[in-house]
């Protein structure tokens, strides 16, 4: 069972309190009707499925119920960081992020 830091509660808690919610930073288009079928497919279905640091969403469903973002290494399953929904995608190449 993973340990996850909720950026809203500022607590590190067991996975049982959280629900995985898929890849992060896939924003719903402002006006979907303007999208081609290919673009709409990409939004709906195409996922990066990265091996390594993966930007993803979790929901603290049995806690504050907020959705938030996380970077997790999908090889070790270890969380590198978590941050609030709406915050910009962190740049992992910076030294702070690397820590």
């Amino acid at each position, binding site marked *: 069972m993973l340990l996850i830091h909720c950026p809203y509660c500022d607590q590190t808690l067991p*996975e049982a309190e959280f629900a*995985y919610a*898929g890849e992060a930073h896939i924003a719903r288009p402002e006006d979907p009707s303007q999208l081609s*079928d*290919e673009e709409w497919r*990409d939004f709906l*279905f195409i996922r990066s*499925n990265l091996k390594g640091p993966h930007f*993803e969403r979790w929901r603290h469903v049995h806690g504050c119920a907020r959705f938030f973002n996380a970077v997790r290494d999908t090889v*070790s399953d270890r969380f590198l960081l978590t941050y609030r929904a709406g915050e910009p995608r962190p740049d992992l190449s910076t030294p702070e992020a690397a820590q």
Partner: protein
Amino acid sequence: MTRYSAFAVVKNALTGHKGWREQWPDAEPKKEYDVIIVGAGGHGLGAAYYLAREHGITNVAVIDKGWLGGGNTGRNTTIIRSNYLYDESAKLYDHALDLWDGLSQELNYNVMFSRRGVMMLAHNVHDVQSFQRHVHSNRLNGVDNRWLSPEEAKAFCPPLNISKDARYPVMGAALQMRAGTARHDAVAWGYARAAAARGVDIIQNCPVIAIRRGPDGAVTGVDTAKGFIGAKKVAVSAAGHTSVVMQSAGVRMPLESFPLQALVSEPVKPVFPCVVMSNTVHAYISQSDKGELVIGSGTDQYTSYSQRGGLPLIEHTVAAICEVFPIFNRMRMLRKWGGIVDVTPDRSAIIGKTPVKNLFVNCGWGTGGFKATPGAAHTLAHTVATGEPHPINAPFTLDRFRTGRLIDEAAAAAVAH
């Protein structure tokens, strides 16, 4: 290839079994192949075999980052069945089942395909409706599958608890008699041996770093840990790692990889005659020829390549098994392990062409790839050889995610209302 038979075993017994030859050579890569298959699991090795046997294409290499058969082929619970709902799925899996039927003889390798019957339990009215829909659909598709009352289910599988007081009482079951299990490693080994005997190179411990494309966009080969290997065509059949490999060719896939756990008990004398699946409580069980209860669970919730998986899910799976088969409470778990399964949005596979010329893909089998092995391999080989899909895999395109023509078995099973 030394032909295997009881006679050969007896003959070798007299000479200390010195006469057996290696089942496949450990090949070093040539400069170029007509076809390179990435991923030496049952699907990839099988495709190489069918390319050689059915299409006469023998200048083929199967490349794997590890040992052949070391991925999901060697990590699954070996359930084989074809009682799927949609015509497309039923045809594909039934094609596989037909091939399973004679596979031992065809490969001259006993893959121990055991038609012991697969029973799917219904635990509520909704399950009953859903499975009866399967039974009716299968019947008209010529796929065997029949409906059993709780008492009939118990007669077929005596350890089953059909008490009406159970938390999830058994309200009936769908039974496919032709379905069963097979020895997973033997499938990979059998295909490897038969493919190698037809000239296919099997290159192990050789990670593919990238798929290389020429100026016209078409595939030219693969960069590997052992250098560049040229290829006229490349087929990726790398299960959980398919996204990673395809990404190198610039193709983004509708796939996510999840951990899937399975476990076995200590071995016991025959007690469990068939395969039982319960989607409602998420547990799948059979007994191996060695005597171990082989138990599968659902996927963990997050994407992962760690092959670890958590304790809570295993606790739930074992609890579910003990709920349905309470006599197994004092049995002991011997070991549990994890695999990585690649899942598509509609839970059905993708077998076919890609936007890149001469690049083919076979993936997205989720938790159900083993049963499809010969069918997937056979139709993939056809697609690679002819450049066009076989009618059976034609619906399983990558393009369906654009058009919306999904083959959604999971959605069709729907959810309790």
